[in-house]
Protein backbone atom coordinates (compact mmCIF):
# COMPACT_ATOMS: atom_id res chain seq x y z
CA UNK A 1 0.00 0.00 0.00
CA UNK A 2 1.48 3.37 -0.89
CA UNK A 3 1.76 5.63 2.10
CA UNK A 4 2.61 2.85 4.49
CA UNK A 5 6.26 2.81 3.41
CA UNK A 6 6.53 6.32 4.79
CA UNK A 7 7.81 7.37 8.14
CA UNK A 8 5.29 7.69 10.95
CA UNK A 9 7.36 10.43 12.55
CA UNK A 10 8.69 13.79 11.44
CA UNK A 11 11.25 16.43 12.37
CA UNK A 12 9.85 19.78 13.38
CA UNK A 13 10.98 23.11 14.82
CA UNK A 14 8.92 25.09 17.27
CA UNK A 15 9.50 28.24 19.25
CA UNK A 16 7.69 28.03 22.58
CA UNK A 17 7.72 31.00 24.94
CA UNK A 18 10.79 32.29 23.13
CA UNK A 19 12.78 29.07 23.23
CA UNK A 20 13.56 27.14 20.04
CA UNK A 21 13.00 23.37 20.04
CA UNK A 22 13.97 20.87 17.34
CA UNK A 23 12.20 17.57 17.80
CA UNK A 24 11.21 14.34 16.14
CA UNK A 25 7.54 13.66 16.74
CA UNK A 26 5.13 10.83 16.11
CA UNK A 27 2.74 12.16 13.42
CA UNK A 28 -0.18 11.60 15.80
CA UNK A 29 1.12 13.99 18.46
CA UNK A 30 -0.98 17.07 19.16
CA UNK A 31 0.73 20.32 20.08
CA UNK A 32 -0.93 20.01 23.50
CA UNK A 33 0.66 16.65 24.26
CA UNK A 34 3.95 17.83 22.80
CA UNK A 35 4.11 20.86 25.08
CA UNK A 36 2.93 19.06 28.19
CA UNK A 37 4.60 15.67 27.81
CA UNK A 38 7.75 16.45 25.83
CA UNK A 39 8.60 20.04 26.72
CA UNK A 40 7.31 20.00 30.28
CA UNK A 41 5.25 23.14 29.64
CA UNK A 42 2.07 22.48 31.61
CA UNK A 43 0.68 25.97 31.25
CA UNK A 44 -1.87 24.91 28.61
CA UNK A 45 -4.24 22.47 30.32
CA UNK A 46 -5.97 19.38 29.02
CA UNK A 47 -9.64 19.69 29.91
CA UNK A 48 -11.52 17.78 27.25
CA UNK A 49 -8.97 17.04 24.50
CA UNK A 50 -11.78 17.57 21.92
CA UNK A 51 -11.93 21.32 21.34
CA UNK A 52 -14.82 21.82 23.72
CA UNK A 53 -13.44 23.61 26.77
CA UNK A 54 -10.68 26.10 25.85
CA UNK A 55 -8.30 25.04 28.65
CA UNK A 56 -5.54 24.43 26.08
CA UNK A 57 -5.74 27.93 24.54
CA UNK A 58 -2.43 29.61 23.62
CA UNK A 59 -1.28 32.15 21.08
CA UNK A 60 -0.24 30.26 17.96
CA UNK A 61 1.62 32.45 15.49
CA UNK A 62 0.04 35.41 17.26
CA UNK A 63 -3.60 34.26 17.22
CA UNK A 64 -5.46 32.49 20.02
CA UNK A 65 -5.90 28.83 19.19
CA UNK A 66 -6.59 25.47 20.78
CA UNK A 67 -3.69 23.05 21.00
CA UNK A 68 -5.63 19.82 21.48
CA UNK A 69 -6.87 19.62 17.88
CA UNK A 70 -3.64 20.85 16.28
CA UNK A 71 -1.25 18.18 15.02
CA UNK A 72 2.34 19.11 15.82
CA UNK A 73 3.60 18.06 12.36
CA UNK A 74 1.18 20.44 10.72
CA UNK A 75 2.57 23.36 12.72
CA UNK A 76 6.26 22.91 11.93
CA UNK A 77 7.94 26.31 12.33
CA UNK A 78 5.21 27.74 14.56
CA UNK A 79 5.71 30.25 17.30
CA UNK A 80 3.70 29.55 20.46
CA UNK A 81 3.16 31.77 23.47
CA UNK A 82 1.56 30.14 26.50
CA UNK A 83 0.23 31.99 29.54
CA UNK A 84 3.60 31.25 31.11
CA UNK A 85 5.44 33.19 28.41
CA UNK A 86 3.18 36.23 28.12
CA UNK A 87 5.34 38.43 30.33
CA UNK A 88 9.04 38.39 31.22
CA UNK A 89 10.01 36.28 34.25
CA UNK A 90 8.74 37.87 37.45
CA UNK A 91 6.37 40.27 35.69
CA UNK A 92 2.68 40.08 34.90
CA UNK A 93 0.93 40.72 31.61
CA UNK A 94 -1.87 43.34 32.02
CA UNK A 95 -4.44 40.58 31.47
CA UNK A 96 -2.87 38.48 34.23
CA UNK A 97 -2.84 41.52 36.53
CA UNK A 98 -6.51 42.16 35.76
CA UNK A 99 -7.39 38.53 36.60
CA UNK A 100 -5.67 38.98 39.97
CA UNK A 101 -7.35 42.35 40.60
CA UNK A 102 -10.78 40.86 39.91
CA UNK A 103 -10.26 37.52 41.61
CA UNK A 104 -11.19 36.00 38.26
CA UNK A 105 -10.55 32.38 39.17
CA UNK A 106 -11.16 29.79 41.84
CA UNK A 107 -9.34 26.51 41.22
CA UNK A 108 -7.33 28.12 38.43
CA UNK A 109 -7.42 25.18 36.04
CA UNK A 110 -9.03 27.13 33.21
CA UNK A 111 -7.06 30.30 33.91
CA UNK A 112 -4.03 29.95 31.58
CA UNK A 113 -6.46 29.29 28.72
CA UNK A 114 -8.73 32.16 29.78
CA UNK A 115 -5.79 34.54 29.95
CA UNK A 116 -4.43 33.61 26.51
CA UNK A 117 -7.91 33.78 25.06
CA UNK A 118 -8.40 37.25 26.56
CA UNK A 119 -5.11 38.46 25.06
CA UNK A 120 -6.37 37.19 21.70
CA UNK A 121 -9.77 38.83 22.19
CA UNK A 122 -8.20 42.24 22.90
CA UNK A 123 -6.04 41.98 19.80
CA UNK A 124 -9.06 40.99 17.69
CA UNK A 125 -11.07 43.92 19.05
CA UNK A 126 -8.13 46.25 18.31
CA UNK A 127 -8.24 45.07 14.71
CA UNK A 128 -11.98 45.74 14.53
CA UNK A 129 -13.04 42.09 14.24
CA UNK A 130 -16.77 41.76 14.92
CA UNK A 131 -18.33 38.99 17.01
CA UNK A 132 -21.71 37.27 17.18
CA UNK A 133 -22.69 39.97 19.71
CA UNK A 134 -21.78 42.88 17.41
CA UNK A 135 -24.87 44.67 16.09
CA UNK A 136 -23.21 46.91 13.49
CA UNK A 137 -20.71 44.76 11.63
CA UNK A 138 -18.99 47.78 10.12
CA UNK A 139 -18.51 49.82 13.33
CA UNK A 140 -15.60 49.48 15.75
CA UNK A 141 -16.56 46.86 18.36
CA UNK A 142 -16.85 47.83 22.02
CA UNK A 143 -15.83 45.85 25.06
CA UNK A 144 -19.35 45.59 26.48
CA UNK A 145 -20.28 42.76 28.81
CA UNK A 146 -22.16 41.04 25.97
CA UNK A 147 -19.18 41.34 23.66
CA UNK A 148 -16.71 39.97 26.18
CA UNK A 149 -18.97 37.08 27.19
CA UNK A 150 -19.54 36.11 23.58
CA UNK A 151 -15.89 36.39 22.61
CA UNK A 152 -14.79 34.39 25.66
CA UNK A 153 -17.50 31.73 25.24
CA UNK A 154 -14.98 29.13 24.11
CA UNK A 155 -13.36 29.12 27.56
CA UNK A 156 -15.41 27.15 30.04
CA UNK A 157 -14.90 27.57 33.76
CA UNK A 158 -16.20 24.75 35.91
CA UNK A 159 -15.93 27.01 38.96
CA UNK A 160 -18.12 29.51 37.08
CA UNK A 161 -15.89 32.51 37.75
CA UNK A 162 -17.40 34.19 34.70
CA UNK A 163 -18.82 37.10 36.67
CA UNK A 164 -15.26 38.07 37.57
CA UNK A 165 -13.56 37.03 34.34
CA UNK A 166 -15.66 39.36 32.19
CA UNK A 167 -14.81 42.56 34.12
CA UNK A 168 -11.16 41.47 34.26
CA UNK A 169 -11.05 41.30 30.48
CA UNK A 170 -12.80 44.66 30.26
CA UNK A 171 -10.29 46.20 32.67
CA UNK A 172 -7.35 44.79 30.74
CA UNK A 173 -8.91 46.15 27.56
CA UNK A 174 -9.34 49.60 29.02
CA UNK A 175 -5.88 49.65 30.53
CA UNK A 176 -4.10 49.25 27.22
Amino acid at each position, binding site marked *: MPGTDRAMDADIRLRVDGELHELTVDTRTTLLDLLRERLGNTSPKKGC*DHGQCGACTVLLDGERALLC*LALAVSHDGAEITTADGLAPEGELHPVQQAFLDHDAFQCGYCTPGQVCSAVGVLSEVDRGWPSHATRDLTAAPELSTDEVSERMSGNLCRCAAYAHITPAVQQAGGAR
Partner: protein
Amino acid sequence: MKPFAYARPSDVAEAVREVAAEPNAVFLGGGTNLVDHLKLGVARPDLVVDVRTLTSREITDTGDGGLLVGAAVSNSELAADRRVRERWPVLTQALLAGANGQLRNLATVGGNPLQRTRCVYFQDVTTACNKRAPGSGCSAIGGYTRYHAILGASEQCIATHPSDMAVALTALDAVVHTEGPRGARTIPFGELHRLPGDDPSRDTVLEHGELVTAVELPPLEMARRSTYRKVRDRASYAFALVSVAAAVDLADDGTVRDARVALGGVAHTPWRATRAEEVLRGRRLTDDTARAAAEAELADAVPQPGIDGGNAFKVPLVARTLTAALRILTGREG
Protein backbone atom coordinates in the same frame (compact mmCIF):
# COMPACT_ATOMS: atom_id res chain seq x y z
CA MET B 1 -5.03 6.65 17.60
CA LYS B 2 -4.14 4.50 14.61
CA PRO B 3 -0.70 5.37 13.17
CA PHE B 4 -0.63 7.26 9.88
CA ALA B 5 1.93 8.63 7.47
CA TYR B 6 1.99 12.35 6.89
CA ALA B 7 2.77 14.38 3.78
CA ARG B 8 2.90 18.11 3.21
CA PRO B 9 2.93 18.58 -0.56
CA SER B 10 4.29 21.77 -2.04
CA ASP B 11 1.63 22.22 -4.71
CA VAL B 12 -2.00 21.40 -5.40
CA ALA B 13 -1.31 18.87 -8.16
CA GLU B 14 0.94 16.89 -5.85
CA ALA B 15 -1.64 16.98 -3.05
CA VAL B 16 -4.31 15.62 -5.38
CA ARG B 17 -1.96 12.92 -6.67
CA GLU B 18 -1.02 11.85 -3.15
CA VAL B 19 -4.60 11.37 -1.96
CA ALA B 20 -5.85 9.92 -5.25
CA ALA B 21 -3.12 7.25 -5.17
CA GLU B 22 -3.94 6.04 -1.66
CA PRO B 23 -7.51 4.80 -1.12
CA ASN B 24 -7.27 5.42 2.62
CA ALA B 25 -5.82 8.95 2.50
CA VAL B 26 -7.44 12.19 3.66
CA PHE B 27 -6.76 15.89 3.35
CA LEU B 28 -6.01 17.84 6.53
CA GLY B 29 -7.12 21.46 6.83
CA GLY B 30 -7.17 23.18 10.22
CA GLY B 31 -7.76 19.78 11.76
CA THR B 32 -10.50 20.93 14.14
CA ASN B 33 -12.83 18.21 12.89
CA LEU B 34 -10.44 15.64 11.43
CA VAL B 35 -8.09 15.46 14.45
CA ASP B 36 -11.11 14.99 16.70
CA HIS B 37 -12.17 12.09 14.47
CA LEU B 38 -8.66 10.60 14.53
CA LYS B 39 -8.85 10.56 18.31
CA LEU B 40 -12.36 9.10 18.36
CA GLY B 41 -11.45 6.43 15.81
CA VAL B 42 -14.12 7.76 13.45
CA ALA B 43 -11.39 8.47 10.88
CA ARG B 44 -8.65 5.86 10.49
CA PRO B 45 -6.52 7.00 7.54
CA ASP B 46 -3.20 5.47 6.46
CA LEU B 47 -2.05 8.78 5.03
CA VAL B 48 -2.82 12.36 6.03
CA VAL B 49 -2.06 14.95 3.33
CA ASP B 50 -1.72 18.38 4.87
CA VAL B 51 -3.26 21.22 2.84
CA ARG B 52 -3.68 23.63 5.76
CA THR B 53 -1.46 26.28 4.22
CA LEU B 54 -1.25 24.91 0.68
CA THR B 55 -4.09 26.63 -1.12
CA SER B 56 -4.50 30.39 -1.27
CA ARG B 57 -4.69 32.43 1.94
CA GLU B 58 -6.02 35.41 0.00
CA ILE B 59 -9.45 36.88 -0.55
CA THR B 60 -9.39 38.55 -3.97
CA ASP B 61 -11.86 40.65 -5.97
CA THR B 62 -13.10 38.77 -9.01
CA GLY B 63 -13.64 41.97 -11.00
CA ASP B 64 -17.40 41.50 -11.41
CA GLY B 65 -18.18 42.47 -7.81
CA GLY B 66 -17.60 39.02 -6.37
CA LEU B 67 -14.84 37.55 -4.21
CA LEU B 68 -12.63 34.52 -4.55
CA VAL B 69 -11.77 33.10 -1.13
CA GLY B 70 -8.78 30.75 -0.96
CA ALA B 71 -9.46 27.46 0.82
CA ALA B 72 -6.65 28.13 3.33
CA VAL B 73 -8.22 31.38 4.55
CA SER B 74 -9.26 30.96 8.18
CA ASN B 75 -12.88 31.21 9.24
CA SER B 76 -11.91 34.27 11.33
CA GLU B 77 -10.21 36.08 8.47
CA LEU B 78 -13.19 35.56 6.20
CA ALA B 79 -15.65 36.74 8.86
CA ALA B 80 -13.60 39.87 9.51
CA ASP B 81 -13.07 40.82 5.86
CA ARG B 82 -14.49 44.33 5.32
CA ARG B 83 -15.96 43.46 1.94
CA VAL B 84 -17.79 40.46 3.36
CA ARG B 85 -19.06 42.43 6.36
CA GLU B 86 -20.50 45.11 4.08
CA ARG B 87 -21.68 43.13 1.08
CA TRP B 88 -22.48 39.65 2.45
CA PRO B 89 -23.21 40.21 6.19
CA VAL B 90 -25.08 36.89 6.38
CA LEU B 91 -21.77 35.13 5.81
CA THR B 92 -19.91 37.03 8.52
CA GLN B 93 -22.79 36.38 10.92
CA ALA B 94 -22.94 32.67 10.09
CA LEU B 95 -19.21 32.26 10.60
CA LEU B 96 -19.29 34.15 13.89
CA ALA B 97 -22.23 32.04 15.11
CA GLY B 98 -20.08 28.93 14.72
CA ALA B 99 -17.68 27.32 17.19
CA ASN B 100 -15.50 29.84 19.10
CA GLY B 101 -12.71 32.32 18.40
CA GLN B 102 -9.90 29.82 18.99
CA LEU B 103 -11.45 27.25 16.65
CA ARG B 104 -12.31 29.81 13.97
CA ASN B 105 -8.68 30.91 13.89
CA LEU B 106 -7.66 27.33 13.06
CA ALA B 107 -10.58 26.29 10.86
CA THR B 108 -10.22 26.79 7.11
CA VAL B 109 -12.68 27.83 4.43
CA GLY B 110 -12.02 24.51 2.67
CA GLY B 111 -12.55 22.42 5.79
CA ASN B 112 -15.62 24.09 7.28
CA PRO B 113 -18.20 23.00 4.67
CA LEU B 114 -16.67 19.51 4.69
CA GLN B 115 -16.91 19.00 8.44
CA ARG B 116 -18.94 15.89 9.21
CA THR B 117 -22.17 15.49 11.11
CA ARG B 118 -22.25 15.91 14.89
CA CYS B 119 -24.69 12.97 15.21
CA VAL B 120 -23.65 11.51 18.57
CA TYR B 121 -23.84 7.96 17.25
CA PHE B 122 -21.63 8.77 14.28
CA GLN B 123 -19.01 10.01 16.74
CA ASP B 124 -19.29 6.93 18.99
CA VAL B 125 -17.59 3.97 17.35
CA THR B 126 -19.34 1.52 19.67
CA THR B 127 -22.72 2.16 18.04
CA ALA B 128 -24.23 1.18 14.70
CA CYS B 129 -24.05 3.93 12.11
CA ASN B 130 -24.49 3.65 8.36
CA LYS B 131 -22.46 6.77 7.73
CA ARG B 132 -19.40 5.54 9.64
CA ALA B 133 -19.83 1.81 9.04
CA PRO B 134 -22.07 1.27 5.98
CA GLY B 135 -24.67 -1.43 6.49
CA SER B 136 -24.42 -1.46 10.28
CA GLY B 137 -27.73 0.35 10.81
CA CYS B 138 -28.73 3.75 12.17
CA SER B 139 -28.74 4.15 15.94
CA ALA B 140 -30.29 7.59 15.72
CA ILE B 141 -33.63 6.41 14.37
CA GLY B 142 -35.75 6.07 17.48
CA GLY B 143 -32.81 7.26 19.61
CA TYR B 144 -31.73 10.83 20.37
CA THR B 145 -33.07 12.88 17.49
CA ARG B 146 -33.06 16.44 18.81
CA TYR B 147 -30.28 17.42 16.41
CA HIS B 148 -31.52 15.33 13.50
CA ALA B 149 -33.25 15.99 10.19
CA ILE B 150 -36.85 16.77 9.37
CA LEU B 151 -36.28 17.13 5.61
CA GLY B 152 -34.68 14.87 3.01
CA ALA B 153 -33.69 12.08 5.42
CA SER B 154 -33.66 8.41 4.42
CA GLU B 155 -34.24 5.16 6.24
CA GLN B 156 -30.47 4.79 6.28
CA CYS B 157 -29.54 8.10 7.92
CA ILE B 158 -31.27 11.08 9.50
CA ALA B 159 -28.18 13.16 10.27
CA THR B 160 -27.93 16.92 9.76
CA HIS B 161 -25.07 18.96 8.38
CA PRO B 162 -23.56 21.03 11.20
CA SER B 163 -21.89 23.94 9.38
CA ASP B 164 -23.27 27.44 9.83
CA MET B 165 -21.06 28.89 7.12
CA ALA B 166 -22.42 26.38 4.60
CA VAL B 167 -25.98 27.59 5.18
CA ALA B 168 -24.99 31.16 4.29
CA LEU B 169 -22.99 29.99 1.25
CA THR B 170 -26.01 28.02 0.05
CA ALA B 171 -28.25 31.09 0.25
CA LEU B 172 -25.60 33.19 -1.51
CA ASP B 173 -25.24 30.85 -4.53
CA ALA B 174 -21.53 30.47 -3.79
CA VAL B 175 -19.41 28.33 -6.11
CA VAL B 176 -16.83 25.79 -4.98
CA HIS B 177 -13.61 25.54 -6.98
CA THR B 178 -11.92 22.15 -6.92
CA GLU B 179 -8.93 20.38 -8.37
CA GLY B 180 -9.22 16.60 -8.64
CA PRO B 181 -7.75 13.55 -10.31
CA ARG B 182 -9.82 14.41 -13.38
CA GLY B 183 -8.89 18.08 -13.44
CA ALA B 184 -10.40 21.30 -12.18
CA ARG B 185 -14.12 22.01 -11.92
CA THR B 186 -16.57 24.34 -10.25
CA ILE B 187 -19.58 23.14 -8.26
CA PRO B 188 -22.54 25.34 -7.33
CA PHE B 189 -22.57 25.34 -3.54
CA GLY B 190 -26.14 24.03 -3.45
CA GLU B 191 -24.96 20.91 -5.30
CA LEU B 192 -21.90 20.20 -3.14
CA HIS B 193 -23.65 18.24 -0.40
CA ARG B 194 -25.87 15.26 -1.07
CA LEU B 195 -28.88 13.73 0.64
CA PRO B 196 -28.16 10.45 2.44
CA GLY B 197 -30.31 8.19 0.25
CA ASP B 198 -28.93 4.67 0.49
CA ASP B 199 -25.30 5.81 0.73
CA PRO B 200 -25.00 8.04 3.79
CA SER B 201 -21.24 7.45 3.93
CA ARG B 202 -20.83 10.16 1.29
CA ASP B 203 -21.58 13.67 2.50
CA THR B 204 -20.72 15.46 -0.74
CA VAL B 205 -20.33 14.91 -4.46
CA LEU B 206 -16.54 15.34 -4.21
CA GLU B 207 -14.47 12.47 -5.58
CA HIS B 208 -11.70 10.83 -3.61
CA GLY B 209 -8.68 13.11 -3.99
CA GLU B 210 -10.70 16.13 -5.06
CA LEU B 211 -9.36 19.18 -3.27
CA VAL B 212 -11.35 22.32 -2.57
CA THR B 213 -9.07 25.16 -3.66
CA ALA B 214 -11.37 28.17 -3.25
CA VAL B 215 -14.92 29.33 -2.65
CA GLU B 216 -16.32 32.04 -4.91
CA LEU B 217 -18.88 34.55 -3.74
CA PRO B 218 -20.70 35.86 -6.79
CA PRO B 219 -21.97 39.45 -6.70
CA LEU B 220 -25.43 39.60 -5.13
CA GLU B 221 -26.70 43.10 -4.50
CA MET B 222 -29.53 41.97 -2.19
CA ALA B 223 -27.01 40.27 0.09
CA ARG B 224 -26.30 43.69 1.57
CA ARG B 225 -29.68 43.18 3.22
CA SER B 226 -29.07 39.71 4.62
CA THR B 227 -28.88 38.05 8.01
CA TYR B 228 -28.18 34.76 9.78
CA ARG B 229 -30.35 33.67 12.66
CA LYS B 230 -29.31 30.63 14.70
CA VAL B 231 -31.25 28.93 17.48
CA ARG B 232 -29.31 26.70 19.86
CA ASP B 233 -29.40 25.21 23.34
CA ARG B 234 -26.91 27.80 24.66
CA ALA B 235 -26.46 31.45 23.74
CA SER B 236 -23.03 30.72 22.32
CA TYR B 237 -20.65 27.89 21.42
CA ALA B 238 -23.26 25.32 20.44
CA PHE B 239 -24.42 23.80 17.19
CA ALA B 240 -27.68 24.91 15.60
CA LEU B 241 -30.98 23.27 16.37
CA VAL B 242 -32.32 25.34 13.50
CA SER B 243 -30.87 28.25 11.58
CA VAL B 244 -31.93 30.58 8.78
CA ALA B 245 -29.83 32.49 6.27
CA ALA B 246 -31.89 35.06 4.40
CA ALA B 247 -31.44 37.92 1.97
CA VAL B 248 -34.18 40.05 0.43
CA ASP B 249 -34.51 42.58 -2.33
CA LEU B 250 -37.35 44.91 -1.34
CA ALA B 251 -39.20 47.37 -3.57
CA ASP B 252 -39.92 50.83 -2.12
CA ASP B 253 -43.45 49.77 -1.18
CA GLY B 254 -42.07 46.84 0.83
CA THR B 255 -42.86 44.17 -1.74
CA VAL B 256 -40.31 41.40 -2.08
CA ARG B 257 -38.73 41.56 -5.53
CA ASP B 258 -36.46 38.62 -4.82
CA ALA B 259 -35.27 36.54 -1.87
CA ARG B 260 -32.69 33.94 -0.89
CA VAL B 261 -33.38 31.59 2.00
CA ALA B 262 -31.45 28.59 3.31
CA LEU B 263 -32.03 26.52 6.43
CA GLY B 264 -29.58 24.81 8.77
CA GLY B 265 -30.15 22.01 11.26
CA VAL B 266 -32.97 20.45 9.24
CA ALA B 267 -31.30 18.16 6.71
CA HIS B 268 -28.23 16.20 5.62
CA THR B 269 -27.37 19.22 3.47
CA PRO B 270 -27.60 22.92 4.09
CA TRP B 271 -31.18 23.31 2.80
CA ARG B 272 -31.94 25.83 0.09
CA ALA B 273 -35.54 26.90 0.71
CA THR B 274 -36.68 27.48 -2.87
CA ARG B 275 -40.35 26.98 -2.04
CA ALA B 276 -40.15 29.61 0.68
CA GLU B 277 -38.41 31.99 -1.73
CA GLU B 278 -41.23 31.49 -4.23
CA VAL B 279 -43.86 32.35 -1.64
CA LEU B 280 -41.97 35.49 -0.62
CA ARG B 281 -41.54 36.87 -4.15
CA GLY B 282 -44.11 39.52 -5.01
CA ARG B 283 -45.58 39.71 -1.51
CA ARG B 284 -45.23 42.28 1.24
CA LEU B 285 -42.99 41.10 4.02
CA THR B 286 -45.26 40.54 6.97
CA ASP B 287 -45.14 37.86 9.64
CA ASP B 288 -48.00 36.14 7.82
CA THR B 289 -45.95 35.99 4.63
CA ALA B 290 -43.00 34.59 6.54
CA ARG B 291 -45.16 31.90 8.13
CA ALA B 292 -46.68 31.00 4.76
CA ALA B 293 -43.18 30.71 3.31
CA ALA B 294 -42.05 28.41 6.11
CA GLU B 295 -45.21 26.34 5.78
CA ALA B 296 -44.60 25.84 2.06
CA GLU B 297 -41.01 24.81 2.66
CA LEU B 298 -41.91 22.36 5.40
CA ALA B 299 -44.94 20.83 3.69
CA ASP B 300 -43.05 17.55 3.30
CA ALA B 301 -41.28 17.65 6.66
CA VAL B 302 -41.07 14.33 8.51
CA PRO B 303 -40.21 14.92 12.16
CA GLN B 304 -38.43 12.11 13.98
CA PRO B 305 -39.78 10.54 17.14
CA GLY B 306 -37.07 9.92 19.70
CA ILE B 307 -36.32 8.93 23.27
CA ASP B 308 -35.51 12.58 23.92
CA GLY B 309 -38.99 13.65 22.80
CA GLY B 310 -38.09 13.78 19.14
CA ASN B 311 -37.64 16.77 16.90
CA ALA B 312 -41.15 17.82 15.88
CA PHE B 313 -40.40 21.11 17.64
CA LYS B 314 -38.26 22.04 14.63
CA VAL B 315 -41.30 22.61 12.42
CA PRO B 316 -42.70 25.57 14.36
CA LEU B 317 -39.16 26.63 15.26
CA VAL B 318 -38.20 27.04 11.59
CA ALA B 319 -41.32 29.17 11.04
CA ARG B 320 -40.53 31.39 14.01
CA THR B 321 -36.85 31.67 13.10
CA LEU B 322 -37.63 32.62 9.52
CA THR B 323 -40.17 35.17 10.76
CA ALA B 324 -37.58 36.66 13.10
CA ALA B 325 -34.92 36.80 10.37
CA LEU B 326 -37.27 38.57 7.97
CA ARG B 327 -38.27 41.02 10.69
CA ILE B 328 -34.63 41.93 11.11
CA LEU B 329 -34.29 42.48 7.36
CA THR B 330 -37.27 44.83 7.29
CA GLY B 331 -36.24 46.72 10.41
CA ARG B 332 -39.25 45.43 12.36
CA GLU B 333 -37.03 43.80 14.95
CA GLY B 334 -38.62 43.97 18.39
